[in-house]
Structures are given as C-alpha cells and as structure tokens.
C-alpha cells in the first residue's frame, strides 16, 4: 500500500495549533457583539432555605444595570424549572426555596461585567434557613426530611434503585468461597474544572425569530433539540435555533449539562432583545456546576484459596445532590457501573446502586470518564489488590491468574456486557517489564526492613466506551449514533463535517487522518469542521470517549461510500469494468496492469467535469453510524510511591502506563491524551475533593483549596502500548481520551496501601492527603516526629 501523509498511525502535528499558539483561538468569552449586555448571578449563601423576598430596587438603580431577573420573571414564561437529562427536574431560578449553597437565586443584566457585579451585590434576599441534609446515607434513613417538596406525593429522598447481575448466583458463590474480602470505598465528589469555565453568548432576532447561541457545550445538536423542546411554547423553533460550540477550553464532561446560567442568558436575550453574555467565574464553576463521582460503595470479593476470584458484590449509595442531573444514557441511571467485574473471569456478580437527594449541587456527570466507569474500575481494582494481599499473593500474580484469556473474546461478562477484544496479560507483563517489577519488590522488602515505606500499585482495567448501540443507548430519546459528512471538491480537496465536537482532542487533525487513511488524500488537503448545528450533521457530541468509536467510524464509512462511487468514475475514465479495478491507497488501477490507473483526485475531478451519463454528478457522502457494540479499551498501570513518614506525603516516584486502545490514529495525540488523563487520575487520588460541613457550606470552593496538580506534583509519565484492534470498528480503533483517568486512581491508592498493608492498613479513601496518611502513621506508631 502506498503511504500518504497523515494516514493512520502518523504522528502529524496538529493543525489547530496554528491559531492557539498565536492567541487566535475563538473561545466563548472572546465573542463580542454590538450592544451586548453582561449577565451575572446572585447565589444563595444557604444550602437549604425558603426565599421570603427578593428586593431588586437598589440593584435597578446601579448605573449600567438594565434588568434583574428572578424566578417570578421566568415563571411568567413557565421557564423557572427545566428537565434534566435523567427525566428529573431542576430549577432555573427558584420561586420558593433554594436547595444548595451557591444555587442561582436571581440574575442581573448590565452594560459591563463590573456593573453586573455591582448589581448582584445590590440585590437583597430574605431567606428563612431550613434544616440541611448533606450525607446521602442520612437522606435515605426512614423519617428523614423530604427535600423535593416540589414533587407531589414524594415521601422520601430516594431517586432510583438500579441493579445488574445475578443476585442468587452471587449469594451462592459467596457462601462457597474460601475467602471473602469486604471493603467500604468512597469515591469523593469532584469537579472537572476545565481551565475555561462555562459560558454563553445568546442573541435573539425577534423579527426573524432566530436564536443564535455560542456556548461551551460538548453536545451542540442535543442542546438545540432540548431548547426547541422546552422553549417551543415561547416561540423558539428548531430550524431557527443555531448552537455554535466554538473553541472549547477543555470539557471532560463538565460541558455536557445545561446549567441554569445558560437558560437565564437565553431568556434574557429573548426578553431584552440585546445579545447577552454570561461567563461564570471559577468559584461558581467549582461550587455550582455539576460534580462527578460521590459514590459510597460497599464492595465484597469472593475467592478460592488458590487465588481464583469467584464472585463480586457491590452496594452503592450515590449522592446526586438535589436533582438527578447526571448525563447518563436514559436507560442507565448508574451509567455503565456494571462493568465493575473488570478484566477478570468469573461467573457471579451483583451490583446495585441507590440514588439519593441531598442539599448539594445537582449531578453527577463524568469526570473524564465514560458514565461511572471510574467508580467501577476503582472498586474492582482496589478489591483485587486487597484480596491478593489477604491471600498472601503478589497482586500481579493474582491478576494474571484471573484475567479473561485472549481466546475467550468476545467475552460475555456476568453483568451482561460483551467485551469486544482484549489481551490483558500481555499489557500487564509489558508494564512489569518496563518498570522492573521484580527488582522493585526486592527493593521494597529491603526498605521495609529499614522502616522505610515504599509501595507498588497495579491497576489492570478495562473500560467500556463509545456509546452506543441505538438499541440500548439514547439521551432523552435521541439515539446515540454519530455522523460524518464528506464532500470532495473538484480539485480533490476535502471538507469533512462531523457530529462530534472537540474540546482539545484535536479532531481537526485526526478526522482528516481518517480520510487520508481511507481515501489516500493527504491529511493537509482535508478540512474538518464541527460544532455548528447549522452546518454539521446531527450527532450526540463528544464525551465518554465516543468520538472515535462513533463519528470516527462514520467518517470511515462515509469515505468508503465515496470510494465506491469513485470506483465507478475510475472505471468510466479507464473504460474498464468496475470489478477489474483494484484499490491501493489513493488510486484505482486495472488488475494486472498497475500503471493503468486513476487517482482519487482524478476521479473527483471527473465527478464534476466528466461523469458518466446516468450517474449523479458530485462526490459526497453522509454516514450515520450506529455502532454494533461498545468498545473496550484497556491497560495496565503500575505506580511506585514513597511515603514520607515525617509529613505523610505520598510521592509518586514512577508511573508506567501501558494502554491498549486498538489501532491508533495519531500516536502523538493518543499519548498526549494519556498524559492528561493520568494527571486527572492523579488529581482525585491525591488532591481533589469537594467537602461540605453539616450546614452544607462548601469547603474548597476555589483554586486556593480545590487543588489541581501543577507541573511540580505531576510525575514524568512513562507510557507504553499494546495493540488489540476492536473487531467491530471499521478502523479497529477503540477511543482513549479517558482510559488513563479511569485506570490511574486505583494504581496510586493500591500503591499506598501496599506500602502500609504490613501495618494493618486496609484502606485510605482517596484523595490520600498528607493529613490522612499522617493520622494513620501516627496510629500505627510509624510517624516520625521531631
């Protein structure tokens, strides 16, 4: 096969860099329209309170203030509540009571950011504080105060019960086990905190009835449809709604939900007739936007003496805040949590999740992961390590013994998934070789004799991404296919438009590479567009590592349709029979006479200048790709930590990540995503958590105390790869953006517990902060004190 520049596997440099390194990106806050007003939001200091009165008179007198919007204003249009993606409801602005600290209470529109902020400061609200529930376990206790009094007949704070697996078979497996290891694990509440916060510019043309919004969204088409459905009654109609997701400064799941601020801004644009900009500040982003995780898991693993796993049981309480505003596919209230059986082969598993309301911000979304997969992987990988230790086995040996074997794929998991492909042992072995596992174990034993604390942690995860097959996956009824539209211009240059959208993933580069691979047109001749609902084909957007599995596949399929038509054109040009033509990358030639051929560019030119009679002119194709299955990327990570007995600090000395995401489109970009993902795995493992006091006051609501890792805390990640293509994806690719965030936390936590196991320590919940470790060391008489 001839090579073409930018084909799959080439680490070409990114085309989007050109504007970003010159400061010429176009992010939402960079958009400035004539006559634009700025919106700022009054927020609640209480986590639960009745609103007795909102006084807006003083605010209206502040120079520059144009309007103050309250729940009553929106109620007149029946827009004070909105649906969530999980068929729950959420307030846009409250009329009766607030349900969490920092909830939106009113909005001020003014001629500048500064005037809007002055206006916010001048709005006075009378509250009557109500009792607060912050702990979801307390929320579910009988007799607990019912929080959602807006829901008629609601008698408790229970949102849903969901389960997967075979309960009876699992009970039997546990009865017959030689060992049962049980552990409570808490996955803390965290926020994605992309460096760009959320924002919107909304413009409404009353004469045309046209609404245009530029918005930090990962799913512009879905937003357009949702706006059309919830605001149809005020005259918005889908063909006149245009949602543009321009350059986005990181998404990670945080830009999937519809936040009240967006809706208020749209309402304000419709009501005032002026374009409105709302950009939240960081404190609002951390304290009020959708959170991730917050899973209280009780995990049990059953095993035989020889180390064979025989069963898994997990009972979870999920804190959703005051509304279930998760962004899961509709039929999956606990996302894909049932992938928790992991990379291991056993028959019996039962996992269940109960959702609870509390006085916290609504959610929960993913944090760079595919719908609760991180929680699942944390559970199974922490349990694998604890069980291995309990049995006195090396955690690597334990995993090798239990892995699903390569010949078992496609593998039917006990909770009902069909894993497409995997070769887990090879990935773990490679990670062990890269890090020098045996030597590290020796070093650890020697150090332990000297009282030094060093740990080695493994995580051999499998993900489940690429949602998803339309028979199972939809969001508000919208099936989770994705799309691509390709036009070949007469000169052989290409325009590709895709239904997914980039927030830094580099789609403008990688989707061009898919076309280069499939059509043999150099990537630099392929222009990729996305994020504008007026021009891009309908798609469900980018999250849950779904771009490559869905729209990537659609791009390949559309390319193949083009190739089919190009074959007819080539046959016409060569006066040959279609069936006598062979394809090599970029060119058709007559079988047996390789010099008699036509390039794809020549075919393209013919499509507009010399197409055969009876054939439609032009060379275009569209594909809406409905994946037959999910893809299951996997990997093995090994982490080495040293624990400072003087401070309790955990230092990640080395971290080797071997990832298998099938065939790689651009290895440079894949590796970059893994680096970033690992850092977002390190973050909740050691630093990040949103915590609340019993009154629902948030601790750690700014970057001063919600700690993102800097370059200093982040280790120099070492990466490796194995390649096990997906058998059902047209490119054999699987998606990789989130693997590392999913796989890294248990590797780090396992390393810490590995360092402390001999002292009797079985768990420290993440984030494993110096304070927590110090407390444990002190208890065990291991703390070094002056």
């Amino acid at each position: 096969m001839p090579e073409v520049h930018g084909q799959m596997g080439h680490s070409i440099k990114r085309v989007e860099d050109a504007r970003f390194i010159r400061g010429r990106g176009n992010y939402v806050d960079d958009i400035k329209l004539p006559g634009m007003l700025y919106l700022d939001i009054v927020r609640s200091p209480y986590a639960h309170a009745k609103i007795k009165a909102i006084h807006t008179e003083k605010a209206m007198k502040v120079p520059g203030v144009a309007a103050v919007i309250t729940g009553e204003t929106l109620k007149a249009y029946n827009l004070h509540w909105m649906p969530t993606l999980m068929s729950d409801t959420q307030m846009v602005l409250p009329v009766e009571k607030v349900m969490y600290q920092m909830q939106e209470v009113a909005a001020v529109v003014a001629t500048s950011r500064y005037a809007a902020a002055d206006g916010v400061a001048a709005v006075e609200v009378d509250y009557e504080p109500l009792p607060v529930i912050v702990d979801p376990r307390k929320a579910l206790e009988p007799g607990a105060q019912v929080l959602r009094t807006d829901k008629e007949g609601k008698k408790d704070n229970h949102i849903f019960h969901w389960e997967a697996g075979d309960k009876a078979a699992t009970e039997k497996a546990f009865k017959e086990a030689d060992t049962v290891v049980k552990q409570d694990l808490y996955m803390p509440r965290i926020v994605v905190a992309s460096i760009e916060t959320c924002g919107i510019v909304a413009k409404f043309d009353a004469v045309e009835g046209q609404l245009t919004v530029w918005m930090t969204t990962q799913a512009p088409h879905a937003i357009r449809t949702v706006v059309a459905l919830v605001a149809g009654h005020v005259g918005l109609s889908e063909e006149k709604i245009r949602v543009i997701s321009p350059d986005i400064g990181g998404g990670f799941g945080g830009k999937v939900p519809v936040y009240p601020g967006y809706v208020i801004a749209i309402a304000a644009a419709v009501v005032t007739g002026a374009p409105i900009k709302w950009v939240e500040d960081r404190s609002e982003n951390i304290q009020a936007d959708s959170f991730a995780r917050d899973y209280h898991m009780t995990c049990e693993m059953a095993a035989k003496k020889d180390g064979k796993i025989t069963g898994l049981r997990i009972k979870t309480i999920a804190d959703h805040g005051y509304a279930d505003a998760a962004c899961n596919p509709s039929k999956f209230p606990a996302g894909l949590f049932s992938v928790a059986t992991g990379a291991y082969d056993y028959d019996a598993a039962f996992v269940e999740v109960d959702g609870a309301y509390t006085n916290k911000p609504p959610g929960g979304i993913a944090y760079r992961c595919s719908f609760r997969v991180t929680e699942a992987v944390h559970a199974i990988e922490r349990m694998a390590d604890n069980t291995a230790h309990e049995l006195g086995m090396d955690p690597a040996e334990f995993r090798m013994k239990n892995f699903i074997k390569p010949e078992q794929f496609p593998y039917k998991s006990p909770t009902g998934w069909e894993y497409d492909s995997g070769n887990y042992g090879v990935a773990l072995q490679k990670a062990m070789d890269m890090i020098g596992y045996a030597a590290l174990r020796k070093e650890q034993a020697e150090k332990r004799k000297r009282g030094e604390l060093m740990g080695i942690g493994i995580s051999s995860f499998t993900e489940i991404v690429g949602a998803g097959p339309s028979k199972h996956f939809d969001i508000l009824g919208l099936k989770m296919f994705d799309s691509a539209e390709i036009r070949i211009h007469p000169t052989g240059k290409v325009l590709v438009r895709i239904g997914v959208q980039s927030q830094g993933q580099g789609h403008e580069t990688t989707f061009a590479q898919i076309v280069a691979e499939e059509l043999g047109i150099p990537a630099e001749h392929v222009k990729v567009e996305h994020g504008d609902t007026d021009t891009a084909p309908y798609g469900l957007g980018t999250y849950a590592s779904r771009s490559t599995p869905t729209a990537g596949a659609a791009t390949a399929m559309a390319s193949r349709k083009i190739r089919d038509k190009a074959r007819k054109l080539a046959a016409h040009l060569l006066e040959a029979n279609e069936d006598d033509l062979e394809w090599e990358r970029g060119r058709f030639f007559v079988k047996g006479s390789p010099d008699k051929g036509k390039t794809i560019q020549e075919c393209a030119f013919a499509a507009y200048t010399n197409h055969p009679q009876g054939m439609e002119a032009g060379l275009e194709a569209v594909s809406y790709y409905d994946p037959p299955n999910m893809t299951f990327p996997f990997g093995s990570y090994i982490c080495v930590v040293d624990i400072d007995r003087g401070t309790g600090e955990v230092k990640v000395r080395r971290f080797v990540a071997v990832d298998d995401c099938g065939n790689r489109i651009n290895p440079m970009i894949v590796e970059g995503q893994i680096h970033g993902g690992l850092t977002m795995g390190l973050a909740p493992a050691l630093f990040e958590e949103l915590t609340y006091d019993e009154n629902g006051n948030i601790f750690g609501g700014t970057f001063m105390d919600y700690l993102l890792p800097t370059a200093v805390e982040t280790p120099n990640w070492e990466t490796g790869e194995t390649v096990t293509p997906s058998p059902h994806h047209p490119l054999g690719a699987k998606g990789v953006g989130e693997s590392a965030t999913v796989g890294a936390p248990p590797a780090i936590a396992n390393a810490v517990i590995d360092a402390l196991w001999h002292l009797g320590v079985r768990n420290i919940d993440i984030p494993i902060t110096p304070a927590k470790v110090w407390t444990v060391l002190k208890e065990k008489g291991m703390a070094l004190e002056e």
Partner: protein
Amino acid sequence: MSTHHVKVNVNGAVKEADVEARLLLVHLIREDLNLTGTHIGCDTTSCGACTVLLNGRAVKSCTVFAVQADGGEVMTVEGLTSNGKLHPIQEGFHEMHGLQCGFCTPGMMLSAVALLKQNPKPTEEEIRWGISGNLCRCTGYVNIVKAVQYAAEKMSG
C-alpha cells in the same frame, strides 16, 4: 468610581484608554484592546491563564490593575510572533505537542519566556517549578516541559 487615563505600550504599540480605577489589566487587554489571546481561568490568582509580561516580568494580569500598568510595557501572546516568524516557544509548543485545548497555552508560553530570560538553560526540575503558577488540565505537563526545553535549546543555539 474614579476614572484614570492610562497609556500602556502593548506589544510595541502605545495604547491609551480611560479606565475605572478598579479595572483589571486582563480586562483592559481583553475588552478594551480586544486582544483575546490572554485568558481568564480563575478568580484567585491561581491558574496563570492570564499571564502576560509587564516590564519584562511575568505577571498574572487578573491581579494587576490597569492603572498599575500605566507607562509600562506589556507583552501578550499576540506579541510573541515577530515579522510573521514564530517565537521559539511557540514553535516548541507546536513541535512537542505542548497544547491540547489551547486555553492555558498563552499564559504558559509567557511564563516560559520569562523563565528562559532568567535562566536560559533550566533543568527539568527548574522548568516544572518555573511553570508551577500555570495550571493545565489537558496535557499532564510532560510535553509542555519538552516544549520549554525545545525553546531553550533553540534560543541558546
């Protein structure tokens, strides 16, 4: 609110504006001068997305008042390219894949430029400390460190 007339040399051209005393330098740059390459990522002087050079030193422009820059020289990301030629740090970020979403990138590059001015041959450790006032959520910093090393080499070579 008192207003003040400020004169700032931005990327080599003198700009004048009447500003409120409380106007932040970052807003002068972004809103009055329409140089939107300088970004805002926080409200606690933590993220460094707003980093510019003020009189040759890296500052977080969200924590400097516009009036404090009066009479001074500011360099933003838009000033890195000269005569259409990329600065070595811009080249480094592109060549070493030091950016993904690009939001932290302008501030990151200006911190790096300031670092290399002080310390033309930094070690990896010194680079990591040098950019530790700038947060990146996408890259995990590995390739940002390489980008700075690329620029250091290019500038000294």
